[in-house]
């Protein structure tokens, strides 16, 4: 691999080169100065690079070669469900009738798109055991906030002032952040010794000010909350609602449903469970499902069907929390998710979850002889290990992660959840083979051995990447956030 520094696109610029092709102007060549006041006209042209088409192709091809995706190799990033992103999804989303339609076209001219959205709303409602789904939120955190805004509207309409949202200490950071942006105060409760919600702590925390409990189930520890029905009862009896963070839904499809567990609101991360690509950080999609009493508060519009079988955008929702995003959600992602659902059907999706859970348990079992498993037993789609046993040799979880890079793996999620010291969260997903899992496990065992025998080998890693460990402290202290050098 070429480990030279890669030039910025701006650094390739040479005056006079172009990479674009535009038609000649076939209308009068009006000058901006004639129709726009001078004070509004740009004085200095934007200093964009001047390159030709081959420069652009080689530049982004080179950048892509300095990046690692699922198609490059195993990516057991816990809570992120890095499963294979099927290629057919990419093809269907690019069909002209999906990619090149305008959100304000007459509904009659986009009936195929509306049918897809309507069907997806229903399929996701069935999958999660909810009564209605909105496809509008753009990502998981956006779905959380949307759900909390509905919970807020629900309580307010009942004349109740409920200001607190309870989250366990193992929750995703987005949970408390979403609670704050929805105007709630967050109460964090400790997990019990087995990693579950501490029922006594929950009982002590709930009250007449409880708006909701936000829960990921299976939790970020990969554990199913065995007392979920009791948890739901405690929260509901206090007058609160239950919010399901669907980031970990890959464990439960067709096996159990949040709606049946007692949850009132659910979001799904289609870019996790439904295989839509993460795109290097997005776009995602975070649909939200609700039980019937919350349907009036769903963001508008949702897709409805007339008695004659035609579909329409339903804006007539006076109690809606309003709009949370422009238009109707990340439609292109929804097309991919729908395509994915149709490649499996309900029985196939159940098989997805069964295989994901078996893969995770197999890995946990084999690794348990070499790394500390703080919560043994059965896990669901992911599990958490602790690297604290290696601290005696001066090796930390970060070092293990960096060493994995030299073997061609994307490391697990590290230092999360926060309630496990030196944590590593491993999620294999169902699309990885036993051979891949075995090779990764063997590598992890080898790294543990290296940590004991040649710790400096591990702490100095990685060696084979285009850059080695980067100075993150200085990056934050003296931020260089753009190429203001000009050209």
């Amino acid at each position, binding site marked *: 691999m070429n480990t030279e520094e890669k030039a910025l696109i*701006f650094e390739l610029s040479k005056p006079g080169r172009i990479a674009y092709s535009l038609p000649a*102007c076939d*209308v*009068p060549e*009006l000058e901006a100065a004639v129709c*726009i006041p001078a*004070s509004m006209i740009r004085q200095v042209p*934007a200093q964009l690079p001047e390159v030709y088409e081959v420069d652009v*192709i080689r530049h982004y091809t080179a950048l*892509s*070669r300095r*990046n690692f*995706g*699922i*198609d*490059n190799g195993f990516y057991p990033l816990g809570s992120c469900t890095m499963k*294979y992103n099927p290629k*057919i999804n990419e093809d269907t989303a690019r069909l*002209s*009738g999906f990619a090149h*339609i305008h959100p*304000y076209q*007459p509904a009659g001219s986009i009936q*195929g798109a509306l049918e*897809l959205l309507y069907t997806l709303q229903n*399929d996701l409602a069935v999958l999660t055991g909810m009564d209605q789904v909105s496809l509008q939120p*753009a990502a998981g*955190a956006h779905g959380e906030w949307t759900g*909390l805004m509905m919970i*807020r509207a629900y309580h307010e309409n009942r004349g109740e002032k409920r200001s607190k949202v309870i989250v366990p200490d193992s929750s995703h950071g987005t949970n408390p*952040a979403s609670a704050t942006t929805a*105007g709630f105060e967050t109460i964090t409760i400790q997990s019990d010794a087995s990693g579950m919600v501490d029922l006594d702590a929950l009982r002590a925390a709930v009250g007449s000010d409880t708006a909701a409990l936000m829960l990921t189930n299976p939790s970020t520890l990969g554990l199913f909350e*065995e007392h979920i029905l009791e948890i739901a009862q405690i929260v509901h009896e206090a007058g609160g609602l239950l919010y399901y963070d669907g980031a970990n839904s890959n464990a439960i499809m067709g096996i159990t*449903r949040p709606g049946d567990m007692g949850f009132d609101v659910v979001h799904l991360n289609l870019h996790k469970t439904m295989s839509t*690509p993460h*795109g*290097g*950080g*997005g776009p995602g999609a975070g649909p939200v499902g609700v039980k019937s009493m919350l349907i009036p508060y769903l963001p508008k519009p949702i897709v409805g069907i007339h008695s004659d079988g035609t579909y329409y955008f339903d804006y007539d929702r006076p109690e809606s929390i309003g709009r*949370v*995003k*422009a*238009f109707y959600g*990340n*439609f292109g992602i929804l097309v991919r998710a729908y395509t994915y659902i*149709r490649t499996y059907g*309900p029985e196939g*999706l159940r098989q997805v979850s*069964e295989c994901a859970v*078996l893969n995770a348990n197999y890995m946990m079992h084999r690794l348990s002889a070499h790394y500390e498993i703080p919560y043994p*037993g059965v896990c669901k789609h992911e599990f958490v290990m602790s690297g604290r046993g290696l601290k005696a040799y001066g090796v930390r979880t970060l070092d293990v992660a*960096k060493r994995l*890079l030299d073997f061609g793996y994307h490391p697990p999620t590290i230092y999360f959840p926060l309630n496990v010291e030196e944590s590593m969260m491993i999620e294999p997903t169902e699309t990885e083979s*036993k051979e891949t899992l075995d090779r990764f496990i063997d590598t992890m065992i080898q790294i543990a051995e290296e940590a004991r025998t040649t710790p400096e080998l591990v702490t100095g890693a990685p060696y084979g990447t285009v*850059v080695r460990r*980067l*100075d993150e402290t200085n*990056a934050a202290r003296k931020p260089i956030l*753009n*190429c203001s050098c000009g050209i």
Partner: protein
Amino acid sequence: MTRPHRYIPMTERDKSEMLAAIGAAQTDDLFRDIPDAIRYRGVLPMSPALDEISLLAHMKELAGRNTDTASCISFLGAGIYDHHIPVIINHMISRSEFYTAYTPYQPEISQGELQAIFEFQSYICELTGMAVANASMYDGVTALSEAGALAAGATKRRELVVSRTVHPEARETVRTMARGLGLDIVEVGYSASGVTDLAALRAAVTADTAAVLVQSPNFFGCLEDLTAIEPIIHGVKGLFIVSANPISLGLLEAPGKLGADIVVGDAQPLGIPQSLGGPTCGFFAVAEPLMRRMPGRIVGQTKDIDGKRGFVLTLQAREQHIRREKATSNICSNQALLALCASIYLSTMGKQGLIDVANLNLRKAHYANSQLAFHEGITLPFAAPFFNEFVIRLPEEGPSVSEINRQLLTYGILGGYDLGLAYPELEGHMLVAVTEKRKREEIDHLASRLGELI
């Protein structure tokens, strides 16, 4: 019995070996922690599975029931535009090293994405004239909402003044956000020329105003006089937030040069398909004093232990995974792949191309404007300067905008946005968008058909 599926490698033999290793008799034992009362035992009544041939046929059938803008002549804009997408963009964003990667948490194997984001930030700063930009937001309207939230936090004030010329869906989204944070929204109307009413704005802005939120070109396509608005809000030490169309910035002065504190917008015009309005990509740029209050991911340049240039996610102390309930925003996933689209677009257009494409938009829109106004009965209600979009008023006694659009579609024309939908007082008004893709004869075609229909 596990049925083979092309995405799942587990064979019956794998399964039995793995179960044996674990010491479980069957897969179901791994779900023993789920209470029986909530186990789903049937088959979920969802859409059934299809083989690849049938699925492709089904998806093509659904797509085929939509009239796409490749098969008609679009004059529809209002936030989503029919611009040319250079062919190389799709080839580059189809590199699966980009699109199948997660957020670049491991910088050593994510330098490609990190550098691409760093370049995106650089492009946005250059276009907007701002000091710092982030890695992207969900879309332009959520970016505007977050800008309002930032302003409230930075000024410790609870009121946002929003012009009614801001996109109606943006204003709705800002209102939803404001309800969450307990902020007040004051809307200011527009003048006879189609831009923010400055007298009303002056009256609305007080010492409690956290920010003024405007859009330019505004929803009517008119250019706001940012130079006149700036002193009104800075006079009370509030923040000036501008939502801008990135292609227009090829010709129009960068809002940062006109005193904006936060500049946001939607990068859809920069090579992103319309896709029923999403996914697009919001951009978000601020003046330096606001840097540590920005929402979202930010990439910074640094060095590795050998002194080599590299890039990392930085200033993470603002973010939800560190700050939890004290974070500046809850955003996590953003729209990275679309930010890449926008970057490749700007790399392709370059310095001259952006000016040229902006000029084509300006000229074709002005040509269309004059051709449409030529018809007796069609009037131009707003006199303010415009870029690539403008408002026409149809005769009161004639058919409605939606009826005209229905008729236009039979001629293969996607007509403009019906402004009466969002502005009751503008019933009978149509917002017409004209991009570089529209040929003179297509514009003439619209003018002729419209002349017949009114």
